[in-house]
């Protein structure tokens, strides 16, 4: 990857297990220096003018590679991208030199206000063209390639005419972006819409995938229909571990993130989950190679 700033060097994110960095774990991480390959944060949580979150991140960045996983760019929105937000994002990229930068295949504003939740896209050629333009614009602005993550969703639009996995891969292919494959999201969406997990994953070219996400989800009962809710509030479920294991056994180890964003446990429980993912990576026999997107 080409550096755009020469002030410091971006540490590549290794093909190891990483964790979503949470404020309640800052102290434990600084004191214990746990053996975790890397951390990931939402840059939007570090867009204050100053304050402890930025200082903690700076401190932790001294010891670990970092990935910025954006939630606020709203790539799929019909509205133009917000240049102020892109500037804020770029400032963080320059300051923290992340090994990876990613965003979702989603949208979060239809008017001047923001949903702060990831809304489902309509899979049409019109919407594909738009998101490709927006990804291009972000990559050009940041001067680097980004990764695009497949969404979790609870409904499908009747107007959609392209299968999600095709849309997802095509958006990255046309814009030159890489893929962040969220295996929990694949499982959740396939289960919610009656799609085939095997077909979904088979449609995603593994050489385009540079990062994997894993998280827990919950189950809601809708008049006898099970809807899986991607709330990142529990351990990764057995089915998703199994999908993950098959994926890295077939395709080799990749940087793998454990996301835990609600009902956040004490640090040891999160650490155990990260170590569990790391064990699969060791077994897949390809650890400690650096990601080279």
């Amino acid at each position: 990857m080409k550096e755009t700033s020469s002030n410091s060097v971006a540490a590549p994110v290794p093909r190891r297990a990483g964790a979503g960095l949470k404020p309640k774990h800052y102290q434990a991480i600084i004191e214990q220096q746990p053996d975790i390959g890397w951390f990931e944060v939402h840059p939007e949580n570090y867009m204050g003018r100053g304050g402890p979150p930025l200082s903690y991140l700076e401190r932790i960045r001294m010891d670990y590679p970092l990935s910025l996983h954006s939630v606020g760019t709203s790539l799929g929105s019909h509205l133009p991208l917000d240049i102020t937000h892109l500037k804020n994002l770029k400032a963080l990229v320059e300051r923290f030199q992340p090994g990876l930068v990613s965003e979702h295949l989603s949208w979060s504003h239809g008017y001047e206000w923001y949903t702060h939740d990831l809304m489902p896209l309509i899979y049409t050629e019109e919407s594909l063209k738009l998101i490709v333009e927006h990804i291009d614009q972000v990559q050009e602005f940041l001067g680097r390639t980004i990764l695009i993550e497949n969404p979790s969703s609870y409904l499908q639009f009747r107007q959609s005419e392209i299968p999600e996995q095709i849309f997802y891969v095509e958006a990255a292919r046309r814009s030159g972006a890489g893929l962040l494959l969220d295996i929990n999201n694949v499982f959740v969406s396939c289960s919610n819409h009656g799609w085939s997990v095997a077909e979904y994953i088979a449609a995603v070219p593994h050489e385009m995938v540079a990062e994997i996400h894993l998280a827990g989800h919950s189950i809601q009962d809708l008049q006898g229909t099970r809807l899986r809710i991607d709330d990142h509030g529990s351990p990764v479920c057995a089915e998703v571990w199994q999908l993950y294991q098959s994926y890295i056994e077939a395709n080799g180890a990749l940087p793998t993130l454990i996301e835990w964003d609600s009902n956040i446990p004490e640090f040891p429980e999160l650490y155990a989950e990260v170590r569990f993912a790391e064990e699969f990576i060791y077994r897949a026999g390809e650890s400690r190679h650096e990601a080279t997107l």
Partner: protein
Amino acid sequence: MKPLSELQQMFCDGLRSAAPPSPVLLNEIVDDGLQLERFNVYRNNFVVLNGDALADMYPVIKRLLGAEAFRLLATAYVRDFPPMDRALLLYGERFADFLAAVPELSGLPYLADVARLEYAWTAAYHADDVVSLGQHQIAALPPDGFENLSLRPHPSMHCISSDYPIYSIWLANQGEQMEETISLDEGGSQVVVIRPKVEVEVREVFPGSLALLQSLASGETIGAAYAQAVEMDAEFDLQAFFARHLFDGTFCELQNQPVTD
């Protein structure tokens, strides 16, 4: 076929509305008999996720009202004032005014000012990192012409003046248990919220001190600010003020005002 913009705006209308989504919107969703329930996952997430951000910013208000009442008010607030910023760090800027306008809360007149204090706490938490004046700079103060100096308070500083004992209320709700009973007869309080270093500090000050700090923050000289402080509080003691606040990180810059006459 609807254009993307129209569909996304219709989706947002349904998300924000207290009423169930329109049949036109539901008709855009693949029909499996559960369109309403599926859409409601998003509608519910919208008020819950943004309501959680409010709960993080206003823990004392949540405690004073109870979780259930807080959730109802937060939901109404999210629908009335959805986030206008991509980052949620300072979401909830208008919550104090919102609470003040809720008729059912008129029996809790101190609530809005406590909310102002909590907003100030988070704003100070994310404010610019600026180094406060050190001992050396203060020691170098010229002995004469002190009143013509301009002393700039730290940019994280927020001043709140209330007719109610909001400092005591806030303080009593910081621990695990609330045993203390606070009487509104304690009267008003003046509170400074500031983050000179890492931690946010909440300090109760004299009325004159608050007036002085507000004047200094607006760029007045020490002399002019002192005049305002005395007008507000006849017993204001400048020497005592400096003894307490010159070395506690309140100020970050010292300037000689150019003579303007």
